[in-house]
């Protein structure tokens, strides 16, 4: 039972002031101004950045300018406001409490508080409850722990469980959508209930006088487990045929898929019956399959042909003098009366690859015709002009040999 009629002594007043100071520091990171909690997560980010900077600075501490530098990503007025609040609440303090102090240090409690808050935001408190129970378990097993401490711990836990149970009961009576959304964050796994009961057992064994407090704790654990089951039961009843799969986190499914043995996986389908493969092969379909059987491939498959209309090789291949004449005229016009011409000039003359490539093709063709007097001679030179066409250009010379020009 919580005691209510404290005598207010100097000692207790001092003690309360110390607790308040701890609270203030712990929640300083969340405070918007000295009287309320933040409404913008960026404000928490500033505090976190500052704490990280303090941790790095070590015993050098930080000056105001250094703090500002660490938070340079945030607007200056936001930073100043934040610093004022953090200082007001004692999360950041002067290294030495005297006027015109330039160096500052951070409070350890605030940093721990911030870590705690971040974790709470991540998983809604379930794993925090695990940690808390594990810690309390260690505490009550510690020979130095007094009965009063154990009583306080049991009372705190009982209160937490009762609050969770109440919230779950409210949800269970509400809409199914809300329940589906909220319940998995709140309900306790068997593990939590088991830990809580073992803690309860430890306290009761060590301090039999605490049986009243323990009875309350036990009742709270039971009502919490019951509320969890009730919420889950309502969801199970309302769930259609696959909808409840959403209630386990994707990570749980993945872990199961990755770590379960073949036997455990297979056991899921025990008692389910499926059809054996029994496709039907109709006689007519068998006859059709035989008739449509792919014909034996010819020994040498023809190369693939273009789908475009193609007059065929017989017409376009012109080995006669007409073809040679055309090539000769191309070569002559390229030479322009000279006996030799530089290829790199000929090919860049138009500044366009489409025309240069045709010219190049014709010149190479005539070079290959042994009966013609034109020859290409390639040299080692190479021009690279990224902006121009063609961008890469081998050097060479087109020349007229022999004497029948």
């Amino acid at each position, binding site marked *: 039972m919580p005691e209510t009629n404290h005598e207010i002594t100097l000692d207790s007043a001092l003690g309360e002031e110390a607790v308040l100071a701890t609270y203030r520091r712990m929640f300083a990171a969340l405070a918007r101004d000295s009287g309320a909690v933040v409404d913008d997560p960026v404000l928490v980010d500033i505090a976190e950045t500052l704490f990280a900077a303090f941790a790095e600075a070590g015993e050098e501490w930080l000056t105001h300018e250094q703090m500002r530098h660490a938070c340079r990503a945030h607007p200056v007025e936001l930073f100043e406001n934040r610093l004022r609040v953090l200082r007001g609440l004692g999360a950041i303090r002067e290294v030495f409490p005297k006027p015109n102090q330039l160096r500052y240090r951070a409070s350890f409690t605030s940093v721990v508080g911030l870590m705690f808050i971040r974790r709470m935001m991540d998983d809604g408190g379930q794993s925090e409850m695990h940690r808390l129970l594990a810690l309390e378990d260690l505490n009550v097993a510690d020979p130095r722990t007094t009965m009063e401490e154990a009583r306080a711990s049991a009372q705190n836990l009982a209160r937490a469980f009762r609050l969770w149970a109440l919230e779950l009961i409210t949800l269970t009576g509400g809409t199914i959508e809300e329940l589906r959304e909220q319940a998995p964050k709140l*309900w306790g*796994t068997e593990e939590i209930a088991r830990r809580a009961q073992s803690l309860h057992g430890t306290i009761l064994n060590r301090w039999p006088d605490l049986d009243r407090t323990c009875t309350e704790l036990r009742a709270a654990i039971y009502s919490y487990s019951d509320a*969890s*089951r009730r919420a*889950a*039961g309502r*969801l*199970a*009843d309302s*769930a*259609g*045929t*696959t909808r*409840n*799969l*959403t*209630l*386990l*986190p*994707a990570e749980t*499914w*993945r*872990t*199961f*898929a*990755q*770590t*379960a043995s*073949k*036997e455990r*996986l*297979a*056991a*899921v*389908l*025990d*008692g*389910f*019956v*499926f*059809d*054996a*493969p*029994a*496709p*039907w*092969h*109709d*006689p007519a*379909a*068998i*006859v*059709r*399959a*035989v008739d*449509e*059987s*792919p014909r*034996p*491939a010819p020994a040498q498959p023809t190369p693939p042909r273009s789908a475009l209309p193609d007059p065929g090789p017989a017409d376009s291949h012109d080995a006669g003098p007409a073809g040679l004449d055309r090539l000769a005229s191309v070569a002559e016009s390229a030479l322009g009366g000279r006996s030799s011409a530089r290829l790199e000039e000929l090919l860049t003359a138009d500044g366009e690859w489409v025309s240069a490539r045709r010219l190049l093709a014709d010149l190479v063709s005539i070079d290959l015709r042994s009966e013609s007097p034109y020859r290409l001679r390639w040299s080692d030179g190479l021009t690279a002009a990224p902006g121009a066409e063609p961008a890469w250009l081998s050097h060479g010379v087109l020349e007229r040999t022999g004497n029948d020009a």
Partner: protein
Amino acid sequence: MTPDLAHARARATGPLPLGAGEPVPHGMIRLEHGDGTGLALPAWPDGATPSLLEEYQVAPVAVERSGETRRVLAAALKCCWSDLAAGPWPGVPAPVDEVLAAYRALIGRGDDLMRNWAIGALRRLHDSAWLVVADGLVRLGPRCACWPEESHAQLRELVRRLPAPGQEAAGLDVLPAAGPDGGSASVTPPGGVDEDLLGPFDERRRAEIVAAFMAVEHAAEPVHEARFPALRDPAPRRVLAEMLERRGRVLIQDRERWTSGYADGAAAEAGALPDEAQRAVLVLVLIHSVAIPRAEGLLPADSWLSPFPVQAEELRRHTMLPIGELEAALRALRHAGLVTQVKAGEEAGGYVPGPQFHRLTGPARRRLQEELILAAGPHTPLAAAVRARRR
């Protein structure tokens, strides 16, 4: 064994073995080996076969590599159907090499790839009881006895014109005898299947009911009632439901579409998937393509089918299953329509639950969800609620 259970079991595990002198369950074809033992296969009413679906333009259960599979079946018929005056079953055993040689003669090529494909087809035909491949010999399987008499002429004609296997695979000098004791094998179809139910209807009504029966039992996907008057009208639908009930089956409705599934009572006794690796792989596919997308809020419909494939790579690398077993299990599951392979581009694609998941009844679907939750999160309050409800 009651007839409904026998039918359910034959559907789940293939043709039922019969001991010597054991009577055939009602409504099943008796295949006798000649020594008294035999096999039992479900018979269809009014001599219908799944070919009927073609008339209604409804897709039957898909056949993997159908052309190749059927050509290999034709090659096996060429080798095993010895007495063309009789029906094809049981025929005589033929060495696997002789069947492969007949297949080679049929398609006119003989490379290694063709051989591998043909062996894959032999395995699929064996798994679906169209052939029995064992000890290097191929026999015609019991399903070959399901071809109606009147279609034998067509097959006989086909076998006559197929090229004989080449000389290089002359085969065994002495083939094993057809039956264990040389006794004569026989096929006895049951008379008047469901006559008592169908009798009162005129020809047209009767044909409609049989068509609806074949459609819900053998179409790949649920069929629309607009195509099948017997599904639309309550009176013939009732008869249909009774026909199914005799086979341990029930009608399953999804709005205007219908299919059939195992009745929940029969399912418990008909026997599950025998292969453990197959069951494990199927569970993995369900987790990855249904449970995880659901948990992430991507899958809105309350169904066990899913558009989210699980990559074979994921199954290969992030599970405890040996790779060899995984590949074999995926192949078998695909063949049975329990998973469907989705191809998308070069690398993407994978496996989703197959069309058989249409055939789960409501309670079976719910139970599947609960079993998965019990297995993956046994210590969650949800699992506790499931256990409490079952007690």
